[in-house]
């Protein structure tokens, strides 16, 4: 290998610059980003797509620099949306990202060849860079020693080796940037064959340089892509003379074939060949036959029988802990907002503004913050397990089962989180790489019976399902309860199967999932990332949730109700009306009340009356609000056991028939409706954020409402005929 003289550039860091982190997934790239930026990060979706842009700042020698964490990529052949952003940003033609001034090329030392494949592509773009070797401790364990100096000499860029899990990794990188600087790599160091080089040159000169605006340094690598692809598909830049290009590409492909080269494979094969040859001088491998930690752990954790069992246990521990840790925080948040609302309510003069502040804005904010404990705890677990390498194993073990129902091995954790709350679950689908699998998982996730449905189920079951023993310790009430959970799962699996058929496949992306070596994750990085998830929820979904809360408040508070003489006479209260009755009348006469009456004909087939109709509207804020609304409608004081409400529901008489208004059939129908209907604005808000479009939350709301309506109708008819008939 020819050793190069590196031209180091240090002046770049004297002025504010944009530094991009580039590398394969699982290299410790995010850990480095978190170490460099801490909580000075901004995460948002790139416009129009669901790939996240991670940007932050760091100070090196007193100068503030921008850090961009580009999406992890295995190649620059930009087949997937995230890899495409990395590619477009690097060649400086992505409108929504700045062109980086210098790069930190992150390379996993324990997996050098595949990491250098991407690095060699990036180097062809001639951007000043520092190569950062991570995971050398894991390489050590495997008997792999990398001579940084040799590697640096081969590729012509400075190389440093760091431990991304140590607290000091940001210091090491900053120091290296200052002391060793960066260097601009030479293009085509990987020694492409003469025919390939000639083909690239001709495509560059005869078409790319004339009919596109691509910068000169980006054209050779684009030529390689076009030669392999054989078409202009996926070309994101504007071009003219398409016919000319196609003819030229065809001709060049034929020439390559005539010279004994496979145009599709040539680039990849030749890059890997050079990487293999060149690492002979810089990498020494001791033949170690003993098992590594990863091998030993994998023998158990991915075992055919033990693997799934352990995974279920991990899930169990995870959700039990989230539940028991999050609950006190949620109770505290709940209490704080109620107290705060009461304080504001009593310190301001009563009236509309007071009500808007307390029942609209403060209650809405409380409705946002209440989700934070679950989100943060779930993500602490997920990022921790992801960091150890276990999440990939869990996906490996579960994938066979999940593909049978049209999902992905990585769908399991988000779906299970849905039993606590759909919101953290939907946020957790981000670990599913394939967009279609991810979308289907999001779309069925709200069927998992979340904890907000419990109060509704509890009241309805207690009121209308007989407390009969069925077999052994099983009671009918318990069975109905279990049946509702099961029903949610069945609906989820069924919907997934249907969606798998009707959703457009687009370009199929192959399943090639890496199983990274086990390691202890960088804890501060895990914490930073989890807090960032909470921040994203509050800032992006939160504003939608508060806005809808205010709309719901308007619907329940207007038109404002003043008791009339006839109302007072009807009430027979000697001109006095209790506060409870006032709020009952206010709700009944409000827009929400009008809505309930207006919708009554439509929901009558389900066994619902206008009072439940009001509840369907108000419980859009959160499912459990249904119970509170029914309490208000019936002027019942809310108690923990809801005994008053249960009694009241049982004794409600239909004025036309003189029979009980609500029956077992009504209760079953309502519970089935709640099991499926998209009665949760916060879920819709997070779906909007995660799919970066209003289309999917609307589709979700639509199909779930239709399914809920039909199922509740069938249930009501069936129960009336077979249970009560």
């Amino acid at each position, binding site marked *: 290998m020819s050793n190069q003289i590196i031209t180091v550039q240090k002046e770049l860091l004297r002025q504010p610059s944009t530094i991009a982190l580039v590398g394969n997934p699982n290299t410790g790239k995010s850990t480095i980003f978190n170490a460099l930026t801490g909580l000075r990060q901004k995460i948002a979706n790139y416009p129009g797509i669901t790939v996240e842009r991670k940007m932050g700042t760091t100070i090196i020698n007193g100068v503030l620099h921008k850090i961009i964490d580009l999406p992890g990529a295995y190649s620059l052949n930009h087949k997937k949306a995230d890899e495409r952003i990395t590619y477009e940003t690097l060649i400086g033609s992505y409108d929504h990202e700045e062109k980086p001034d210098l790069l930190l090329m992150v390379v996993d030392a*324990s997996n050098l060849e595949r990491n250098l494949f991407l690095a060699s592509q990036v180097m062809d773009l001639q951007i000043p860079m520092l190569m950062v070797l991570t995971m050398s401790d894991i390489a050590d364990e495997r008997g792999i020693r990398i001579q940084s100096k040799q590697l640096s000499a081969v590729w012509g860029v400075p190389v440093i080796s760091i431990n991304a899990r140590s607290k000091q990794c940001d210091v090491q990188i900053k120091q290296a940037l200052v002391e060793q600087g960066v260097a601009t790599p030479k293009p085509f160091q990987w020694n492409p064959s003469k025919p390939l080089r000639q083909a690239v040159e001709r495509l560059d000169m005869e078409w790319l340089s004339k009919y596109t605006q691509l910068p000169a340094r980006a054209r050779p690598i684009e030529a390689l892509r076009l030669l392999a692809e054989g078409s202009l598909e996926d070309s994101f830049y504007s071009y003219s003379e398409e016919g000319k290009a196609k003819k030229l590409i065809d001709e060049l492909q034929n020439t390559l074939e005539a010279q004994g080269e496979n145009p599709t494979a040539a680039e990849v094969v030749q890059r890997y060949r050079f990487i293999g040859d060149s690492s002979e001088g810089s990498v020494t491998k001791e033949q170690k036959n003993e098992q590594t930690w990863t091998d030993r752990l994998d023998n158990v954790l991915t075992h055919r029988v033990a693997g799934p069992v352990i995974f279920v246990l991990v899930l169990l521990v995870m959700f039990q802990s989230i539940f028991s840790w999050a609950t006190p925080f949620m109770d505290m948040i709940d209490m704080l907002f109620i107290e705060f609302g009461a304080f504001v309510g009593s310190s301001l003069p009563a009236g509309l503004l007071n009500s808007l502040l307390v029942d609209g804005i403060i209650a809405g904010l409380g409705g946002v913050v209440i989700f934070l404990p679950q989100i943060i705890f779930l993500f602490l677990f997920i990022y921790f397990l992801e960091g150890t390498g276990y999440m990939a194993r869990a996906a490996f073990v579960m994938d*066979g089962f999940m593909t049978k129902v049209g999902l992905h091995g990585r769908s399991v954790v988000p779906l299970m989180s849905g039993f606590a709350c759909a919101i953290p679950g939907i946020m957790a689908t981000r670990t599913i790489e394939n967009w279609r699998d991810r979308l289907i998982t999001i779309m069925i996730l709200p069927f998992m019976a979340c904890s907000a449905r419990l109060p509704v189920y509890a009241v309805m079951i207690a009121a209308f399902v007989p407390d009969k023993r069925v077999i052994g310790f099983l009671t009918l009430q318990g069975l109905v309860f279990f049946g509702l959970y099961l029903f949610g799962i069945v609906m989820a699996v069924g919907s997934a199967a249907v969606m798998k058929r009707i959703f457009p496949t687009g370009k199929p992306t192959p399943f090639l999932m890496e*199983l*990274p070596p086990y390691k202890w994750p960088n804890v501060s990085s895990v914490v930073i990332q989890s807090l960032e998830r909470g921040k994203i929820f509050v800032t992006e979904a939160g504003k939608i949730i508060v806005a809808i809360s205010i709309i719901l408040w308007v619907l329940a508070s207007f038109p404002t109700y003043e008791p009339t003489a006839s109302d007072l006479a009807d009430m027979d209260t000697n001109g006095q009306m209790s506060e409870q009755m006032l709020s009952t009348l206010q709700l009944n006469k409000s827009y929400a009340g009008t809505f309930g009456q207006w919708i009554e004909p439509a929901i009558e087939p389900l066994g619902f009356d206008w009072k439940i109709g009001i509840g369907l509207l108000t419980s859009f804020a959160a499912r459990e609000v249904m119970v509170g609304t029914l309490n208000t409608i019936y002027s019942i004081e809310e108690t923990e056991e809801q005994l008053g409400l249960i009694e009241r529901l049982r004794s409600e008489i239909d004025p036309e028939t003189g029979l009980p208004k609500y029956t077992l059939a009504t209760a079953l129908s309502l519970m089935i409706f709640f099991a499926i209907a998209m009665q949760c604005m916060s879920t819709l808000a997070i779906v909007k954020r995660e799919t970066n479009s209003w289309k999917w939350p609307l589709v979700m709301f639509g199909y779930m409402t239709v399914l809920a309506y039909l199922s509740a109708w069938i249930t009501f008819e069936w129960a009336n005929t077979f249970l009560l008939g």
Partner: protein
Amino acid sequence: MLLSDARVQQKYEVKQIQGDELVRIMEMGLTPGSICEVIRRAPMGYPMEIKIRGYLLSLRKKETDAVEVSPI
């Protein structure tokens, strides 16, 4: 033979990759001439876990069907 018919704990030389996704598969390091070892299969038979260029990669049936190998 195809990688999907390969046996666990056996080493194979990659001969050729076919199909629409050949570039993607090769980019992960499965180039003709490279050596891979089948490590294990998941509970339902797939994905299959292999060791290639010193790292662990899992593939579903469709991807293993695209890889032609010969035992060594």
